[in-house]
């Protein structure tokens, strides 16, 4: 065993509780060292006859296991190398699944990628009832498929349709949904998590809970799909057709994932795992995966670099103004309201504001339709957006984003009107994509407070936000814009020079780095991939060339603050 102490063990009355708390990291993740330490504990528990069952719980508040450390993926030298790593994972998971000591996982917070594959191998999955408790297999976003048995155990656990939905989109599944689908066994209040986990472990040891059991509610339809060769074939074929259509065939991980799931449902168990390992190996060496991982690193490496003096503190944006109630303005208002930020929505006439508010409601209603939010939450969010045809309510607003017609004269008028009503330290952001910010700032009496915030349409689906600074833009202004962008869940890039090329390239990257928008959900985001589905390599090379072309880094990637996508 190594020096690292990611785990701590206590045994009480025959039940072992293993606490996972990776030192020096904000989240728990699997690395070779961690796996080595864990298997050491596993051996220890297997040998100790006094231990009858075990619980694995996270010592980190808000996260369970965020997945595998992707550093190890970069170390693969060949497809065989990667496939072997996958097979190694299979061995460990199999040991957890069939070993003498049944394991209960007590999940509070993110349970992602390898973390979920681990949980699937356990004998009992208990989850805390918190909004942060989410389950996902996000490997597809890196151009990979789950490599530690996820494509095999998940379809058997929750059925082929639900499994494909998770594997092909990488989407987050909340605890309640996970319970409904049979992914987990039970949900409890977080304060009871440990206690109930120990109780369930004891019941497993006593045989009161069988180690192998069905956790989903079976319907006739689910049986028809999962338990008949015809049903499975139809579903897999449909998934393949849909995914290929939406990805334009540019995303090898999608057919690979479908093939792996097919292998899970037909033929022997060992053949299924072998298929998963082989496909994982191939994908790990594919150009798409390499480029996506490069971009992931680029994003992470530049995480803290806003291009402003270190320690610049910005005022918190507690409400925003949006001028111009067109599609962009409405999108910006909607994503702000989604994050609980009040919006003052201004246009020249109230019927235009009404149209904009209707568009805001349409965006917010999607959450209601998908049951992500309750009606009460929907109404609260709608209530955060108020409309006006005058500039009342702008006197205390710390950030205004104008999204009016792309005409320099109109923009200048809006800048002058705004500066008459805004507090002097407000940030005036312009959502232009065609007019240089410097030109717009010409109308400003306070050009240091002017900045570009270039959103992409549709705002609620496109993850990218380009913050364009002028030579005059004050550092605090940049930080305020960047922090706001992150708060509304955007990946923020600070662009020093207006560079349409950079945004176009990065936009393209984001489009195919998020198959979630492309495969799983029908919608506006999904068509983008086909349209821009060029070979990924060229795009990334262009990105790499940007700093050189300008002689200095002109493009900084700033990932959104959402932790769920940071590790696999």
């Amino acid at each position, binding site marked *: 065993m190594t020096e690292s102490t990611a785990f701590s063990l206590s045994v009480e009355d025959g039940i072992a509780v293993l606490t996972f708390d990776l030192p020096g990291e904000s989240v728990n993740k699997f690395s070779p060292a961690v796996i080595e330490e864990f298997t050491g504990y596993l051996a220890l528990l297997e040998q100790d006859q006094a231990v009858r069952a075990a619980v694995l719980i996270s010592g980190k508040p808000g996260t369970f296991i965020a997945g595998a450390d992707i550093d190890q993926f970069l170390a693969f030298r060949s497809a065989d190398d990667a496939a072997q790593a996958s097979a190694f994972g299979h061995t460990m998971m199999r040991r957890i699944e069939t070993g003498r000591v049944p394991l209960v996982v007590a999940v509070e917070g993110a349970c992602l990628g390898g973390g979920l594959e681990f949980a699937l191998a356990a004998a009992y999955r208990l989850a805390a009832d918190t909004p942060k408790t989410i389950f996902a297999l996000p490997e597809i976003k890196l151009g990979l498929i789950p490599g530690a048995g996820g494509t095999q155990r998940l379809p058997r656990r929750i059925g082929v349709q639900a499994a494909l939905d998770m594997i092909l989109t990488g989407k987050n599944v909340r605890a309640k949904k996970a319970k409904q689908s049979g992914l987990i066994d039970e949900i409890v209040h977080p304060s009871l998590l440990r206690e109930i986990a120990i109780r369930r472990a004891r019941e497993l040891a006593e045989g009161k809970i069988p180690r192998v059991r069905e956790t989903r509610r079976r319907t006739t339809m689910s049986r028809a799909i999962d338990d008949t060769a015809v049903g499975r074939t139809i579903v897999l074929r449909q998934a393949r057709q849909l995914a290929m259509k939406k990805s334009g065939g540019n995303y090898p991980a999608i057919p690979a994932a479908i093939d792996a799931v097919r292998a899970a449902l037909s033929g022997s168990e060992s053949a299924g795992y072998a298929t998963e390992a082989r496909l994982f190996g191939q994908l790990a060496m594919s150009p798409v995966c390499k480029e996506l991982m490069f971009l992931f690193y680029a994003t992470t490496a530049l995480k803290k670099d806003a291009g402003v003096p270190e320690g610049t503190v910005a005022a918190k944006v507690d409400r925003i103004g949006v001028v111009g109630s067109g599609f962009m303005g409405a999108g910006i208002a909607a994503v702000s309201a989604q994050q609980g930020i009040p919006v003052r929505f201004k246009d020249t006439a*109230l*019927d235009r*504001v*009404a149209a904009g508010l209707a568009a805001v409601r349409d965006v917010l209603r999607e959450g209601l339709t998908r049951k992500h939010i309750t009606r009460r939450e929907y109404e*609260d969010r709608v*209530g955060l957006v108020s409309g*006006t045809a005058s500039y*009342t309510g702008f006197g*205390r607003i710390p950030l205004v984003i104008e999204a009016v017609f792309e005409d320099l004269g109109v923009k200048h008028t809006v800048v002058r009107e705004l500066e008459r009503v805004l507090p002097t330290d407000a940030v005036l952001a312009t959502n232009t994509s065609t007019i240089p910010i410097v030109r717009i700032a010409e109308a400003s009496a306070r050009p240091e407070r002017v900045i570009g915030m270039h959103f992409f349409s549709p705002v609620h689906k496109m993850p990218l936000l380009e913050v364009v600074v002028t030579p005059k833009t004050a550092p605090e202004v940049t930080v305020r814009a960047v922090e706001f962008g992150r708060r509304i869940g955007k990946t923020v890039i600070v662009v020093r020079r207006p560079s349409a090329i950079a945004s176009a390239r990065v936009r393209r990257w984001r489009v195919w780095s998020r198959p979630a928008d492309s495969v799983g959900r029908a919608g506006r985001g999904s068509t983008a991939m086909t349209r821009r589905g060029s070979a990924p390599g060229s795009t990334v090379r262009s990105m790499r060339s940007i700093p050189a072309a300008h002689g200095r880094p002109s493009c900084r990637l700033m990932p959104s603050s959402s932790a769920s996508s940071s590790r696999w």
Partner: protein
Amino acid sequence: MRTSPFGGPGSGHRVAIIDGVRTPFAKAGTLLKHLGVIELGKLAVSELIHRTDLDPASIDLLTFGTVIPSVLAPNPAREIALMPLLPKGVQAWTVSRACASANQAITDAADQILLGHATVAIAGGAESLSNVPILHSRGFSDALVAASRAKTPMQRVQSLAAIRPKDLIPVTPAIAEPTTGETMGQSAEKMAKLNGITREAQDALALASHHGAAQGTADGRLTAEILPIFPERGSRTPITADNGIRADTTAAQLAKLSPVFDRAYGTVTAGNASPLTDGGAAVLLMREDVAKAAGLTPKAYIRSYAYAALDPGEQLLQAPVLAAPLALRRAGLTLDQIDLVEMHEAFAAQVLSNLQGFESQRWAERAGASKPLGAVDRTKLNVMGGSVAIGHPFGATGARVTTTLVNELARRDGQFGLMTVCAAGGLGFAMVVERA
């Protein structure tokens, strides 16, 4: 010890009325029928916060008036305060004083400020007469309760079998006095007869109300206090004005309407009474020094207020005649010093009875005054119409009247304003506001 301008102990500061905002007032069952008391209140409070550029974190309390409460949300003020715009730590309670409920909210908030318990308060009211709870009959309720307590299915069937056809008729709350059984309209009818208020005089007042409100709507003075509503259902056309105001109504048209409450000899018609209305209104109150420190310019300050009551069986809506002299005395003012009067118009007959009472020696003595207040200069009374035209959402009217008064007083650069509100139960309210 510092004393309050109202005469009691207090913080020694005046209470500033910073601004007021209201929804459009819409006849019940029309434009606002999908919005309940809580939604109407939230809309008014949210817009008030935005328009005044108020930091929501500074708000200490929110109190709201409503007359017909929802059984499901008995403290609507708290539900309003729980909208995400406000911090969760805002005190909130609901008050009820019939048609003066919003006034009760405003004076409660003012008292809290004067006591030094608060510095920033939102007070208002809302009413949705489109969403009146319809109740089951007593017999039906009894059967349901008995059934819920039944121990066997047979007992349950027996309990429910006790329901008689007449029990199935729902009970709609009437606007009637519990003590006398008299409806509002009947009370107004009685007042018209007791005080000799003619049909013509009532119709003339109603006409003035509609024309004044129409003028205020056309020139934007009245609509300045209205927030636009962007309907979620039906037409998406923003609602920006009250829908009960009839700019084109004439004396002849009003004269054609039949009396409602006394078909044979009555004078009160649908035309000279306030309609059933939906709406919400809110007012921002602050301690004078806190408002100044925040850079806010108050529209006016509360100088004094008074409540009064009389026997509901007598003249139900005549208590403003007792409250107004008291409020003026507390303000140290006389009626001739008042630049503008806003009198809530439940019925034209009530307004004219109240005005007559102001001039009456008998009523002056009942109010404890040696001589009558005197005649109200009609050019200073309800200059943009009143509740007859604008509408009367019971819980909201007091905040509407306050807002209308302080806005118009400022426009006219007047010094003192008086408002009165009559209320069910024989209650009356009066308040004096001052500028600068």
